[in-house]
């Protein structure tokens, strides 16, 4: 059975815990990185990992590793401070990759 994990600050993941997702609180970027590595090591268990945008920059190298594999799906979600627009830029990166230039 596959699971879904959420990595983010304590306040962010708290709500998701109530929904029955695996909440992984991380106080800073290093903790997030360690948690992310731990979760992806057994990637058979986690199909989706939601990562708070605030930590996305520190994790970007790790996240890129999973871009081409079908699992897990790594999705950026906005944190408490609102959207940083990183999710949108991921979309733009995909378009640029496919088309060869940014047409959006």
């Amino acid at each position, binding site marked *: 059975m596959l699971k879904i994990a959420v990595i983010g600050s304590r306040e962010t993941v708290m*709500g998701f815990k109530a929904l029955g997702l695996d909440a992984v609180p991380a106080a800073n970027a290093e903790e997030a990185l360690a948690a992310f590595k731990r979760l992806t090591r057994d990637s058979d268990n986690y199909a989706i990992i939601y990562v708070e945008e605030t930590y996305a920059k520190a994790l970007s190298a790790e996240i890129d590793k999973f871009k081409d594999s079908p*699992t897990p799906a790594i999705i950026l979600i906005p944190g*408490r401070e609102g959207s940083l627009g990183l999710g949108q830029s991921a979309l733009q990166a995909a378009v640029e990759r*496919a088309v060869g230039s940014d047409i959006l």
Partner: protein
Amino acid sequence: MPKTAITPTRMVLNQQKTRLKMATRGHKLLKDKRDELMRQFFEVVRKNRELRTRVEEGLTEAFSALSVASAIMSPEMLEQAILYPRQSVELQMSFKNVMSVNVPVYDFKTKTADTGDIYPYGFAQTSGELDDALGTLSRVFEDMLELAQVEKTMQLMAQEIEKTRRRVNALEYVMIPECQENIKYISMKLEENDRSSKVRLMKVKDMVLEKAHNFKY
């Protein structure tokens, strides 16, 4: 002159001709594949953009409600209230083949089917804002799941398009011109050989005639 050394024989010429035919066919097929992938890709992109805005809006709303709840309740109480979730989500994943790209399809089951049954605490000691926050969050979660599916699909398709595009370009600008050049080179060489052997034969004939009958032009 072709870039690589090829022997100008009829056999190699035939080989090159079949290769050219194959390359042209492959090029056409791959181009069609790329075009169709592109069309579907943009549909996915459009959907992704829509979902992302919806999720981001929903999450902001849920988080602000949660902030209010945490302001009203003490941190310990809040922690305690959601410490043991009643709900658990189980995810089933299958794969769908879209233009030879395997994209994931998620299907999730919650332990309790009733959406009103997500609150892991009694209502007596918690604030109403927490209920609102969790309610919003659980609604957003369905969109989030779809977003995950769409976004992964988009990434995988982007990769496939890139690959196909490279193949199309390699065929169009490298393989096919090379083959054409080779064919031209070989056929010219063969014609040249033909001519030279004809000239040689004529020369030999002249020499034989001269020897036998002292014939001279």
